């Protein structure tokens, strides 16, 4: 941690003239958050050519390239920071890059310090620190059009003279100042400059007993006030500005909270309404492609690999794209206009109670739709600890993939009886209860983690509430594009790989003779039962119907598929885990279904269908759904007449799926977002343990109450 940012940067002497041998010059973009730095990046370099992480840290490195007057320029966007006295990994990266301390990252040839013209005093804090490094520097005065409108007059020439570096007014949507900024960079790299002096006299005026860093901060503001005297003129505004009035309303205790609730409701209902048809469309297209591929290839291992492994995996990836795109569109719009920080401001107290912060709200709320965009939205939390904690608990929110599981089991096994009121039925109460289980678990886990492994000094919530402004469509679209692309590229490939592994486990070993033997055994049992039962009973009719269904081509194919899966590695794993899942009231087939649904929990319905010898089922189809329900109701423990699916078992399955980490995509995205495989492993372990314990308690208490 550097406490004194002043003093020349590492090897200042001996720098060869830059930009002459055809190599691009490296220009770093430094600035406070919310100063229009991203907008300036897009205006200069367009779409970034590279987005990655700095070596060894989880701090995003964004690099773009462009040419100015024939000179190739590599633009490096440094993390937004308020100071060069680093207090967070992001700030440390900015400091290390500027001082040439980051291995493999060269000292920039020139620094553009982005300074918000509407808020020059605080922005010059970082700017004067950067000027103290002695690197070639240009100051870009962003939002100068907004400053004009607010009646803030800045004498740019005089400011440049006092700071000893060129100051260029830019107004990004209009493209004002982009050319002069490029010229100033080319001029700056040719003429070495000395570190800016002037802090020392002010240091003398501050109590020498204080911490050096605190002394410097106080002295620096004194110096800035002196630097700006006579440079900035504020015309007293005629009354309060529209932005200030909006702000007063939207951060008001009552109206602000109501407006916030309305915004969130509108945002999430529109994500639901807009993304659902798109997701259905993608699923339909993927089904059509699968059908096409299946029709073109002969039945066999290759077809099965392509259709059930690869295409099913790809479908499982692309289906998330609409939700990710929609959510990031909203988040970028809210962030662009300045509302995101107001939302964090309003929700901070509530989330503070469980050891999180206001900025965790949007990621957690998004996770009710899907944890993947939610975890990605946690990027807006600058604070590492809060961000990690939010990512770890986000998958506990009941996402839309859990809903089919809840609906099926609630519909089949929870008695449809009124609870207190005639309109309030028990299945609905259980359904709401499942959502509550997730929220309560998330609150408890956050509380426990923040008091144990994430214990540390209190995390400051010192957050700027940026001025209201119109979102820049370029920045908004870039956020959406980048979110979708990073998901497809990094997470997508891994999710497909995991799907292929699960397919292989469910498909091999594959022995036709063993399958024939099992089919014959099942049919034999059914025939024997039919002969045992009295000829006029309902049971007899049902068994006869079952035998007739089995003797059709579809029935036989379904039975063969089930037999193949039971004999596969997955089936063996199911039997292996039976001792573990038996206390939850599950038989080995449920254990098997739980393992098979590791890539995505919604797969559990399909797996249950296969494993209980049903053909492909479409849960949306009334006929197929009720067929699955009938099969599940009829299922018995191996070798007994005891039913597998009782109310306690159904509840224990629901609780397990509410809390477990059965979603490979989520784990892969956690790995990508934290840049480590430790955190997905931690998430999987704690969620699986929690799910098991809660399901165990549910089953045992349920059985005790029921018995």
């Amino acid at each position, binding site marked *: 941690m550097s406490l004194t940012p002043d003093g020349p940067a590492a090897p200042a002497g001996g720098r060869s003239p830059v930009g002459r041998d055809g190599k691009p010059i490296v220009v770093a973009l430094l600035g406070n958050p919310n100063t229009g730095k991203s907008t300036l990046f897009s205006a200069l370099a367009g779409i970034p050519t590279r987005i990655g992480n700095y070596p060894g840290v989880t701090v995003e490195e964004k690099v773009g390239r462009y040419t100015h007057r024939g000179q190739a320029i590599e633009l490096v966007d440094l993390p937004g920071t*308020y*100071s060069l*006295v680093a*207090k967070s990994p992001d700030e440390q990266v900015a400091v290390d890059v500027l001082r040439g301390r980051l291995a493999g990252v060269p000292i920039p040839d020139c620094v553009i310090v982005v300074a918000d013209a*509407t*808020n*020059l*005093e*605080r922005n010059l*804090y970082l700017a004067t620190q950067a000027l103290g490094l002695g690197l070639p520097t240009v100051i870009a005065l962003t939002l100068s059009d907004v400053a004009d409108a607010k009646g*803030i007059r800045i004498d740019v020439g005089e400011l440049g003279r006092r700071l000893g570096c060129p100051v260029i007014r830019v107004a990004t949507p209009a493209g004002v100042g982009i050319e002069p900024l490029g010229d100033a960079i080319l001029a700056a790299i040719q003429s070495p400059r000395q570190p800016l002096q002037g802090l020392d006299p002010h240091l003398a005026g501050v109590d020498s007993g*204080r*911490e050096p*860093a*605190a002394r410097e*901060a*106080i002295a620096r*503001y*004194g110096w800035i006030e002196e630097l700006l005297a006579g440079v900035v003129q*504020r015309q007293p505004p005629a009354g309060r500005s529209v932005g200030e009035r909006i*702000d*007063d309303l939207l*951060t*008001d*205790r*009552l109206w*602000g*909270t109501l407006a916030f609730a309305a915004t969130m409701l509108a945002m999430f209902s529109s994500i639901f309404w807009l993304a659902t048809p798109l997701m259905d469309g993608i699923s339909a297209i993927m089904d059509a492609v699968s059908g096409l591929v299946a029709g073109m290839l002969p039945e066999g291992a290759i077809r099965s690999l392509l259709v059930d492994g690869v295409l099913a995996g790809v479908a499982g990836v692309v289906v998330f794209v609409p939700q990710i795109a929609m959510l990031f569109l909203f988040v970028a719009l809210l962030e662009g206009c300045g509302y995101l*920080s107001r939302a964090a*401001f*309003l*929700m*901070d*107290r*509530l989330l*503070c109670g469980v050891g999180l912060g*206001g900025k965790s709200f949007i990621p957690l709320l998004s996770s009710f739709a899907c944890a993947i965009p939610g975890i990605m939205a946690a990027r807006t939390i600058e604070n590492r600890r809060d961000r990690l904690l939010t990512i770890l608990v986000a998958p506990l929110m009941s996402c839309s993939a859990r809903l089919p599981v809840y609906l099926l089991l609630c519909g089949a096994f929870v008695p449809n009886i009124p609870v207190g009121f005639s309109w309030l039925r028990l299945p609905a109460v259980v359904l709401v209860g499942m959502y509550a289980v997730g929220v309560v678990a998330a609150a408890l886990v956050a509380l426990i983690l923040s008091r144990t492994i994430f214990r540390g*000094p*209190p995390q*400051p*919530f*010192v*957050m*700027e*509430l*940026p*001025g209201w402004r119109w979102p820049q469509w370029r920045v908004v679209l870039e956020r959406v594009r980048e979110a979708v692309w990073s998901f497809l590229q990094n997470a997508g490939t891994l999710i497909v790989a995991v799907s292929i592994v699960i397919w292989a486990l469910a498909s091999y070993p594959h022995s036709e003779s063993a399958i024939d033997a099992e089919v014959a055994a099942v049919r034999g049992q059914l025939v024997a039962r039919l002969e045992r039962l009295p000829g006029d009973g309902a049971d007899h009719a049902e068994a006869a119907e079952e035998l007739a269904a089995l003797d059709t081509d579809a029935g036989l194919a379904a039975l063969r598929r089930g037999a193949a899966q039971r004999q596969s590695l997955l089936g063996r794993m199911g039997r292996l885990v039976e001792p573990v899942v038996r206390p939850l009231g599950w038989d080995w087939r449920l254990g098997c279904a739980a393992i098979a649904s590791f890539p995505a929990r919604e797969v559990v319905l399909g797996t249950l269908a296969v494993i209980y010898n049903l053909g492909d089922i479409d849960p949306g189809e009334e006929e197929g759904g009720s067929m699955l329900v009938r099969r599940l109701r009829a299922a018995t423990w191996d070798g007994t007449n005891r039913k597998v699916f009782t109310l306690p078992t159904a509840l224990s399955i629901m609780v397990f799926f509410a809390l477990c980490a059965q979603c490979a995509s989520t784990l892969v995205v956690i790995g990508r977002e934290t840049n480590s495989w430790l955190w997905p492993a931690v998430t999987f372990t704690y969620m699986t343990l929690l799910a098991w314990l809660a399901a165990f308690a549910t089953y045992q208490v349920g059985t005790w109450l029921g018995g």
Partner: protein
Amino acid sequence: MSLEQVAIGATARVADVSGTDAVSLRLLEMGLTPGVRVRVVSTAPLGGPLELELRGYRLSIRRHEAARVAIAN
């Protein structure tokens, strides 16, 4: 008296920020230095953070952070 006790809509002058940790340094770096004038704009519900206006911009800090900021009478 600290910034936490200033009424909504009122303006105060900062006297000092106590503490020597990263939080107090961040408060100073954000411009809450001795002598600066601060207006308390609003507060979030349920005893949430304060919204302040200083040096031409708006800043939000939690109550226990505001309690570290002593104001001049």
